[in-house]
């Protein structure tokens, strides 16, 4: 039996790979680059607001005082439906309370210390999650890009019959397209497990709204929450009658006594101050991919049950593992650094993919300098536009219009790339500006 892949299949694989690449590359590149930067989401928040109070742990009583103070500050406003307390973690050693109306840091005693100022980090996360497209559409587009990335990896493998024999062959300094192709193929091959894991988890997260709707319509009489309840648990029945605030301190003390090996990371209050209120404590489990387990308490701080993300159905554990696997926050800074480097490799794979296609056309006599300029403007301009938003955060502050700065500057660079005469090359000026921007960013982080 022949062990070689038929030549026609390889050729069709290459064509399929090129077609998907050309369809999705521009947006996929933006999503990958922003994803690479988003890996350091917690670190960016600390850099954005370096004077926020930090602590390695916070006492249960301080958390209770913080919740009471925050809700007291909202008297006269519509009652918040949910309240989240971010508890100090090694990546983000801060206690932050978020309601429907505000987000504030509290100090180690539970007193309100400052408003949370993480506008840039939130913009970055939103850019990666939805490309800043409002509503469900953004998530669906990004999810679709994830599915396209899975298709790209599959067709890439089909198109590459010497995948193992050439796995370590990198003719990095060859001209005329060989070097570029080797960078694309080698980085693509070795980042394949990472790319597949990221693409599939990203597609699952992004397309969850479509799938959730489909599940709800097909099996749950249109109730989307009911479709997710078997996986992530259901919320309690609302009862709007007024009630004293729940005893969160008692719940946290129970966690310490019953589960000393776990680290609570969030307290979530559903409908606080009502008879239907419920307390959830999210706690991380050591050496697990799951983002945590939800422990449910009643208003007196009595442990009711846990959802089963840590020990329930395989589907629950798989769903809860999706987020950490995607964002690389399951092994501290070393894993984050690995994710940044692998993410950079993915960006190189995407950027070189289109350049290889353009190079082949040029060698066949169909030079398209404006198209090449436009692509180079996107590749180098995306990073530059992102840096511009960071510099705006540094110089203008938390309320700078990050979205407008990013998209307008990127659009201008790409438009200039397409509009300039063919003999004017944009790559080198953009690379120089990017290097300058990176130096300024580094300077802003060190000051």
């Amino acid at each position, binding site marked *: 039996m022949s062990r070689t892949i038929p030549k026609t299949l390889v050729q069709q694989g290459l064509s399929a790979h090129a077609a998907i690449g050309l369809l999705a590359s521009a947006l996929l590149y933006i999503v990958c680059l922003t994803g690479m930067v988003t890996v350091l989401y917690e670190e960016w928040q600390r850099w954005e607001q370096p004077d926020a109070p930090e602590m390695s742990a916070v006492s249960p009583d301080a958390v209770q005082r913080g919740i009471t103070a925050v809700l007291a500050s909202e008297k006269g406003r519509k009652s918040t439906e949910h309240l989240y307390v971010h508890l100090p973690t090694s990546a983000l050693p801060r206690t932050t309370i978020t309601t429907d109306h505000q987000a504030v840091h509290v100090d180690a005693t539970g007193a309100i210390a400052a408003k949370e100022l993480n506008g840039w980090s939130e913009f970055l996360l939103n850019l990666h999650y939805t490309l800043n497209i409002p509503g469900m559409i953004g998530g669906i587009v990004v999810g679709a890009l994830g599915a396209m990335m899975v298709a790209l990896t599959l067709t890439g493998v089909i198109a590459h019959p010497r995948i193992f024999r050439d796995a370590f062959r990198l003719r990095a300094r060859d001209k005329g397209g*060989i070097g570029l192709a080797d960078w694309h193929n080698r980085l693509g091959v070795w980042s394949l497990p990472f790319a597949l894991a990221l693409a599939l988890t990203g*597609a699952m997260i992004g397309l969850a709204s479509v799938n959730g709707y489909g599940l709800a319509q097909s099996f749950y009489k249109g109730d989307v929450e009911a479709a997710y309840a078997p996986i992530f648990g259901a919320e309690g029945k609302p009862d709007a009658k007024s009630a004293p605030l729940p005893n969160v301190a008692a719940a946290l003390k129970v966690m310490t006594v019953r589960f000393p090996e776990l680290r609570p990371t969030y307290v979530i209050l559903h409908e606080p101050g009502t008879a239907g209120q419920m307390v959830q404590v999210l706690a991380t489990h050591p050496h697990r991919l799951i983002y945590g387990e939800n422990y449910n308490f009643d208003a007196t701080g009595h442990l009711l049950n846990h959802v089963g993300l840590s020990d329930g159905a395989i589907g629950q554990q798989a769903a809860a593992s999706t987020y950490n696997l995607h964002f690389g926050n399951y092994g501290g800074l070393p894993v984050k650094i690995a994710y940044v480097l692998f993410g950079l490799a993915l960006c190189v794979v995407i950027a070189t993919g289109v350049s290889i296609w353009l190079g082949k056309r040029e060698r*066949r006599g169909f030079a398209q300098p404006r198209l090449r300029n436009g692509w180079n403007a996107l590749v180098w301009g995306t990073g530059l536009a992102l840096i511009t938003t960071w510099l705006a955060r540094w110089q203008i502050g938390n309320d700078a219009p990050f979205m407008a700065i990013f998209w307008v500057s990127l659009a201008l660079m790409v438009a200039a790339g397409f509009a300039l005469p063919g003999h004017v090359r944009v790559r080198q000026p953009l690379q120089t500006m990017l290097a300058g921007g990176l130096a300024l960013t580094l300077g802003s982080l060190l000051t």
Partner: protein
Amino acid sequence: MIDVPLCNGLIGIGALCGGGAVLSLRLAWGLPMRSARRNGMGWGLLLAGLGLGATGAGAWGVAAVTITATATAFLCLAYAGLRARPGKAVASNRRAHMLPEQREPLRIGGRLLSFVLIVPLAMLVALLAGLALRAGAVRLGAGEADGNILSLFGMPLIWALLVGALLLWPRRRRQWAVLGVPALLSALMLFLDRAVA
């Protein structure tokens, strides 16, 4: 669950095996002749590493070993890149047939139809297939959580497979079959599921 020192030990050895596997494969694939023994050693080490990672800490351990192996491969590539000398090999100029060349027709209608098949239609078929998977799995005894997550993970994977298949078989009749057959089977499965319920 096993205790933490043993878990760390297993993952540590697993990570070493993962890194060693890549180095071993680097040596094996650099030989002038294929060596089944060397290849086997590389793949065996990788399997052993993943097994140790899984034993130590399940999916977390597998992820840790995979990261180590991938990082080792990137180090090998960096070394290859640093040692590379300029060559004179000629790159491929093969056409991907994405844009017209010379005076070829633009085929805008055909391209638009391809887009419609690959993006919205394939997505809908994948959604239908994901729901059918869920219905089938639950009928066969899977829990609701497992069934629902099968649909959530299955849909994008099926979409990617459909996209690959549609582009690997560019003839329209076959493309309609690639979409139509799974769509019909999925619809039938969902219909039967409702009829039985």
